[in-house]
């Protein structure tokens, strides 16, 4: 059931797109911008690929997040979405709409764009929607628009010029209800041409069983205080007009209803072909355009005899409230400046001097967070949801901060410092050493654990795979520590996080069992332990899918952990060399063999 009054009360309606239809989404954003909103109404897209998609809000490019499924939306989105639009194929409309109604806790309703939704599915969706007190316009609908409030679907135009001219960017006084998606735009622009603008407009779709029926929209138009005139476009076939006529007769509120019923032409032929939509075929005399026009006229509607007449009636009965809005035109002109942005950033933004980190003002973001939590959010590109992730990341950073002056990176930094170079140069030489043999093992181990677990590889065959090629197993083995003298850092990690950990750590430890049985030094080392625990935590605490994890590896997340932590050590080694005022380093002759 649809309740316009409830919809009008939503301050800033938030829309979820199920299926990515770029034309529809961009047109909704253009409406939002032209109507003077500060934020776009589309807050997320459900689609199979990618993490976000680029759109324009005004002349500014922005990203809309993509989620794989409704149940993987975060809690805030799940509870704040007001409306949904299904732009997938007809066969998925039932499942998607049902998910939306059941899972989006505060959703008011939605629309279905697809044609070819099975009749049984449409009827079932009507039951589901009514049972939940929600509404769905469609199937085969271009959607619904409420003047100045929201545009749910292609309705009102897909081009910014058309939207700006349609009289939908502010609340008007004429309601338009149509069974045809093409004709609703025609009617909206006709209303605008005659100087009126739209209170709301809805296309119920030309299918046999529309979920929201024309009469329900008509009832809302009668109840809506802003609506002064109602325009209805119906077609031969079906009995919607009888329901509208009945309501028109009994309603205490009287408003002019201007109706056009298409399909007169069908009556002029003995055996008429199908004119127009699937539903547009009269099953009997009472479903012909003539019969339906008569019943509407008898109930007091202004029934147009022709389309020419419809225009005259609209002109005569609609309130002239279509203001040429300079603000809207100004915004429209702004859209001409659209160009693809050179960079996109949502890690941080600087708009008019206000710095935001991950969508939060800088001060707010940093005030109650430690440095490692701040870094973690910025590295992931989103705020972590679990305390455990933050604590794990923090411990990993602390453990990796330094590992003695002998390691390659530290040596390079110290040599550079002693050559009289400055901090950036000395730090850079240390960092530039990081790679496959120094510091890169976490990344490699992570990738290996992840793929092995994903493909269900046996630990034994995993070990065999490396030993056949004579390769080291990343994350396994240590120079000093051995099975009877374990690495205290690994012990600490396991002590804190091994409990409730998942498949990756379990796999790594099985591998360790096999390798230590061959050689005591082939233990799970700190890199291997961090990698395995990280994978488990991302999967269980942050709900990362395999695809998400692959993407995270592509961003070199593990290298980021190491570089961030070890920079501290490298800087410290530089500073110490400066403090000691050490002279230029030269390798003693006996250290070079010939």
């Amino acid at each position, binding site marked *: 059931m649809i309740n316009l009054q409830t919809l009008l009360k939503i301050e800033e309606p938030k829309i979820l797109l199920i299926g990515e239809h770029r*034309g529809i989404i961009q047109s909704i954003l253009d409406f939002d911008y032209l109507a003077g909103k500060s934020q776009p109404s589309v807050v997320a897209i459900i689609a199979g690929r990618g993490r976000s998609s680029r759109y324009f809000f005004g002349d500014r490019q922005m990203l809309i997040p993509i989620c794989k499924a409704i149940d993987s939306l975060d809690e805030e989105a799940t509870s704040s979405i007001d409306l949904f639009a299904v732009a997938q194929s*007809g*066969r998925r409309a039932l499942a998607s709409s049902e998910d939306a109604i059941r899972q989006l806790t505060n959703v008011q309703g939605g629309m279905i764009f697809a*044609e*070819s*939704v*099975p*009749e*049984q*599915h449409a*009827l079932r969706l009507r039951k589901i929607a009514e049972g939940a007190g929600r509404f769905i316009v469609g199937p085969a609908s*271009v959607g619904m628009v409420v003047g100045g409030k929201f545009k749910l679907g*292609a309705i009102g*135009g*897909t*081009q910014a010029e*058309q939207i700006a001219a349609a009289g939908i960017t502010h609340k008007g006084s004429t309601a338009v209800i*149509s*069974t*045809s*998606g*093409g*004709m609703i*735009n*025609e009617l909206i*622009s*006709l209303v605008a*041409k005659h100087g009126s603008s739209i209170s709301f407009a809805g296309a119920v779709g*030309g*299918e*046999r*069983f529309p979920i929201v029926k024309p009469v329900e929209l008509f009832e809302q138009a009668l109840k809506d205080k802003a609506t002064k005139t109602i325009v209805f*476009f119906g*077609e*031969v076939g079906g009995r919607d007009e009888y329901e509208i006529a009945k309501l028109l007769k009994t309603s205490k509120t009287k408003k002019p209803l201007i109706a*056009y019923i*298409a*399909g*007169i*032409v069908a009556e*002029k*032929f003995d055996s008429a*072909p*199908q*004119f*127009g*939509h*699937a539903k*547009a075929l009269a099953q009997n005399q009472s479903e012909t*355009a003539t019969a339906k026009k008569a019943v509407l006229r008898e109930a007091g509607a202004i029934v147009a*005899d*022709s*389309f*020419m007449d*419809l*225009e005259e009636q609209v002109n005569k009965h609609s309130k002239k409230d279509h203001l040429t809005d300079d603000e809207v035109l100004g915004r429209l002109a702004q859209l001409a400046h659209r160009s693809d942005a050179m960079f996109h950033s949502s890690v941080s933004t600087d708009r008019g001097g206000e710095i935001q980190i991950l969508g939060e003002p800088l001060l707010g973001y940093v005030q109650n967070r430690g440095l490692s939590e701040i870094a973690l959010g910025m590295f992931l590109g989103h705020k972590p949801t679990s305390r455990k992730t933050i604590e794990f990341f923090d411990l990993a950073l602390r453990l990796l901060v330094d590992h003695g002056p002998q390691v390659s990176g530290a040596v390079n930094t110290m040599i550079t410092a002693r050559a009289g170079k400055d901090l950036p140069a000395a730090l850079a030489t240390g960092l530039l050493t990081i790679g496959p043999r120094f510091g890169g093992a976490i990344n490699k181990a992570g990738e290996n654990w992840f793929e092995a677990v994903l493909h269900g590889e046996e630990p034994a065959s995993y070990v065999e795979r490396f030993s056949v090629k004579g390769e080291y197993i990343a994350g396994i083995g240590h120079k000093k520590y051995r099975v009877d003298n374990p690495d205290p850092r690994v012990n600490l990690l396991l002590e804190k996080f091994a409990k409730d950990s998942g498949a990756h750590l379990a796999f790594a430890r099985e591998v360790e069992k096999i390798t230590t049985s061959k050689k005591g030094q082939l233990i799970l080392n700190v890199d291997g332990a961090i990698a395995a625990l990280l994978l488990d935590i991302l999967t269980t605490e942050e709900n990362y899918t395999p695809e998400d994890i692959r993407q995270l590896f592509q961003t070199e997340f593990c290298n980021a952990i190491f570089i961030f932590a070890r920079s501290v050590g490298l800087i410290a080694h530089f500073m110490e060399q400066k403090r000691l005022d050490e002279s230029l380093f030269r390798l003693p002759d006996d250290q070079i063999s010939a």
Partner: protein
Amino acid sequence: MSRKKISEYRAKSLILNALGEPYRGVSIDLSHYKKSQLLTVLDDTKKYVVKVDQAIKKRNQQNLVSLNLGSTEVAQALLRFKTEGYTWAIVEDFYPHAQKKELFFALQREERGVILSFSEKGGVNVEEHPEDVKTLIIEGRGVKLGFGKNLDAVFRSLLSVFEKAHMTYLEINPLLVNERGAVVLDAAVEVDTAAQFFVEGAWTESDFREPKTVKYEAEKAVDGLAATSPSSLTLKVLNKDGSIFLLLSGGGASVVVADEFANLGYHEAIGNYGEYSGNPTEEETYLYAKQVLKLLIDSNAKSKKLVIAGGVANFTDVAKTFKGVIRAIEDDKEELIRQGVQVFVRRGGPNQQAGLAQMKHFLNDIGIQNKVNGSELSLATIVHDAVKGLTSDKLTNPA
């Protein structure tokens, strides 16, 4: 169209399978029919029924059902149907029975539920006794039927296959029911084509049947085009010697344009109806427009008009689709100019300005009289413009 009739052969296979009974009918494709093949299947000692299987109502009255035939007579009946231009038939065992035992049973999907209709006075004359037809609205499962144990069991099985196979209409008339089960003599089923994915092969496109109709070549060509395109493309010849030929877009706007001609009294002058929508490609629009132009050129009307019209499109790219139309006009321009064809255009939507400008430029260039407008002109006005000067055609064109 989302509802389509399927063959009686497929309908009965589904129905009898639901009732747990074997179906022994044979479906015959008359366009590839060979007598020798059939005779090996038939039994000389048995009697058969032969029926045209093409979704035709009142077959008995049209002599499209032959009862109680021996095997050679079966072959004769099939040959007769083939000569009469039918393409599908079924051969079934003849089942002698008392006419008064014939029942009528139907299910129809409506908004308020499935409407069950039943009459104990079934058979060919059921429509003469509407007072004997009982109806019941079935909503959800577990509805009390109350027709007695035997009938209820049969009806429940039928309701179940009706839902599972996404049927929208099912009729069995006559139906016989006794303690041993049900005998289904004639059956008709209509299905929801949108549900093809969900019925898992219970029926497929190859089961759809249409009554025998003489189709124009242009209609067949557009059917073929539509079958391979995700866009909507339809064409129907209304009057092959009409004066007004239509290239329309959109399910709603196309009817408004046709209505407006009818309102002005020019429905008999309309040569064709149809529409393209859902953003067809340039090539599809080109091929579609070619069929309409061929109809226009072949028409014997004195004065001819081409009306290219549609509402304000949501997604259909006006410039792209107009390119296809322009190519089609280009192909036939000499003939169109020779016949003095005038072109009237009214269209809005994505890339409207570019599309309209191209069209205007092209028509002026080749010297075809035209009027090209965007959505600022009313959909009705272009129709009024087009009918000017058609009065004589209206009088001389037969419907």
